[in-house]
């Protein structure tokens, strides 16, 4: 189910989104001395009921993309259409309504719940903002939600610090589904959790999707986790999308060298598999987003880079791999399963 074949309308369409942060100096008289190009010309579609993964290493702009779509940060330019309406042109009241349609699950379950509020108040807060559930029914509804996310309904009057990380994340999930949203943006929802709890939370998210039919924009840096939940994937590097495709295309017909490097770093849980031999070690650090390299942003660390890579910025398009990739020399010499792609396909 690659994007080209879909005939239904996307529920969220992000077009040429840019977010530049000014770098300023001075205390009273601030002077802009540069910009951080956190998100640069990012476009993608999210379809109803689908999970779209947004992956990339720290600092590549995944979270900024999400925050901008939610208007927690104002975009520099671009458009984002939710059911055809541009989020960036919405008035205050439209924006408030939007925020019952798109909700968020945050990365850090210790920081995302107000420590002074009871679990019941935390989960019920969306209703006191958007209405929808009469005051007298809120306690029952809260308890139902706690049950949905696998917590004891008697916990409504306890405080967040009395819960473990995984349990807190479940509270965050209950809050996110309280208003029956169409999209949930999951900003690295499991990366702060114990490995043992990660799988539980991912499974809970999958169950919720089955039950409520929400779309997920799933942000993560752990490709192994993402694989379980997403239908399609956008790989980001330094503010740009470098590869896009469904789970099979990206994991088994990896075309962009950066994605290949990322996938080669996914540990294989088999001690005898250590001689796989195709781990790609990237040289150097991520270049500064204040001053990104010309042309392809990955060229400074790419083993395939040639002169052409420093010229025009490679466009995200299908270059004969069956899915869009922003690279002049896409190749399939590596796949996630470690075996040659011809045999897996």
């Amino acid at each position, binding site marked *: 189910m690659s994007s080209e074949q879909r005939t239904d309308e996307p529920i969220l369409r992000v077009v040429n989104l840019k977010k530049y942060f000014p770098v300023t100096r001075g205390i*009273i008289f601030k002077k802009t001395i540069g910009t951080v190009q956190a998100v640069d010309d990012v476009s993608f579609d999210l379809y109803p009921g689908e999970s779209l993964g947004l992956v990339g290493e720290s600092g590549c702009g995944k979270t900024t993309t999400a*925050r901008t779509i*939610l208007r*927690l940060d104002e975009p520099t330019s671009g458009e984002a259409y939710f059911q055809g309406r541009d989020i960036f042109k919405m008035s205050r009241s439209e*924006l*408030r309504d*939007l*925020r*019952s349609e798109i*909700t*968020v699950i*945050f990365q*850090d379950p210790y*920081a*995302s*719940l*107000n*420590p*002074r*509020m*009871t679990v019941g108040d935390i989960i019920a*807060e*969306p209703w006191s*903002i*958007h209405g929808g559930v009469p005051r007298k029914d809120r306690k029952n509804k809260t308890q139902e939600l706690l049950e949905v996310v*696998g*917590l*004891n309904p*008697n*916990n409504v*009057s*306890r*405080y967040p610090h*009395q*819960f*473990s990380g*995984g*349990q807190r994340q479940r509270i*965050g999930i209950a*809050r996110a589904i309280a208003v029956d949203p169409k999209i949930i943006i999951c900003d690295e929802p499991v990366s702060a959790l*114990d*490995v*043992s*709890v*990660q*799988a*539980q939370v991912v*499974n*809970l998210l999958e*169950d919720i999707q089955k039950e409520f039919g929400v779309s997920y924009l799933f942000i993560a840096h752990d490709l*192994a986790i993402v*694989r*379980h939940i997403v239908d399609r994937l956008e790989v980001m590097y330094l503010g740009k999308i470098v590869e896009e495709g469904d789970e099979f295309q990206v*994991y088994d017909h990896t075309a962009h060298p950066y994605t290949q490097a990322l996938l080669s770093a*996914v540990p*294989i*849980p*088999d001690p005898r598999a250590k001689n796989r031999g195709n781990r790609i070690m990237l040289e150097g650090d991520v270049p500064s987003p204040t001053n990104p390299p010309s042309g392809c942003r990955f060229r400074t660390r790419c083993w395939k880079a040639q002169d052409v890579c420093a010229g025009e910025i490679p466009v995200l398009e299908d270059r004969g791999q069956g899915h869009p990739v922003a690279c002049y020399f896409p190749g399939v010499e590596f796949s*996630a*399963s470690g075996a040659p792609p011809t045999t897996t396909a």
Partner: protein
Amino acid sequence: MSDDPSKESQEANDGTIGDESHLYADTVGEHLPVDVVTAAGDESTEKHQFRQTPGVAVGLDELPRNASLWGDAWRQLRRQPIFLISAVIIVVLIIISMFPGFFATHDPHQCNLIDSLLKPSSEHWFGTDLQGCDYYSRTIYGTRVSISIGIIVVFFVSIIAIVGGSVSGYYGGSVDSIIGRITDIWFVIPTILGGIVILSLVSTRGVGTVSLVLIVLGWATLLRLVRSSVLAVKANDYVDAARAMGASNTRIIVRHVLPNAIAPVIIVSAIYVGVIIAAEAALSFLGVGLQLPAISWGLMISNAQRRIITAPYLLVFPGAFLTLTVFSFILMGDALRDALDPKLR
């Protein structure tokens, strides 16, 4: 802490770490559906736990009353002798200031020149002053002035600081710059020096005048504290979560920011009551505070100064009351700090 249930379920989770990470990791490379396996483990871990221990779950329902930060703080404070001592002293002083007639042995304004400068005796516990007034009764009545000025000033200063500081810290930008610069300028005006300058221009000075001047001069310190506290709280994910939920700014400040930012303000306010009481005494001593026939410890100390050799008790009694009062408020502030600041626990 009696929150064993969360600990127990944590242990239950820990027990499954090996199993689940294994199950999960296994599927990473091979891309098998894990739902069935981990979902079963997941649900049984937490739900089962609660079913098994109904006794604990009942205990839970009683827990919440004391489980908040204030509940924890109160439980710690009750056991702290410093807090208990200072609280008792402050409560007694407040009662004295409300009903001084009940504690006094004489009318403080009924003076007999024949009794001038008597030493402490069973008739006049603290002796008499130059005019022959009962010194004990005057000291008791002096409590009223000190406590009311301290409480009035800190009450209004706190309101100014909380409103100004949260607006400044939460909204930032130009509002913050304007409030910030004014505060910086105000902050450098020394309270006592400013008080002398302003109060020397006023010919009749009562509790109201002195309080007003101390409010006008004293708000800057506390406002800066509120602002920095709000800034620190604002950076938390739960504030973003509330914004992403569509909460209004007022709601975010009142429900999310202030409850988390208020603890240091309460601590400093308690100390500040002592500081203001001392400032009033200093101003009255310098002759620019309250005027006779008002009764104030500062005035009493001022008049006692000339007879420090012949009648030292005239200095000692009001001085001791003043010191004790200021000291109690400062100790109270320290005890609150220990209880409210989790980092010091």
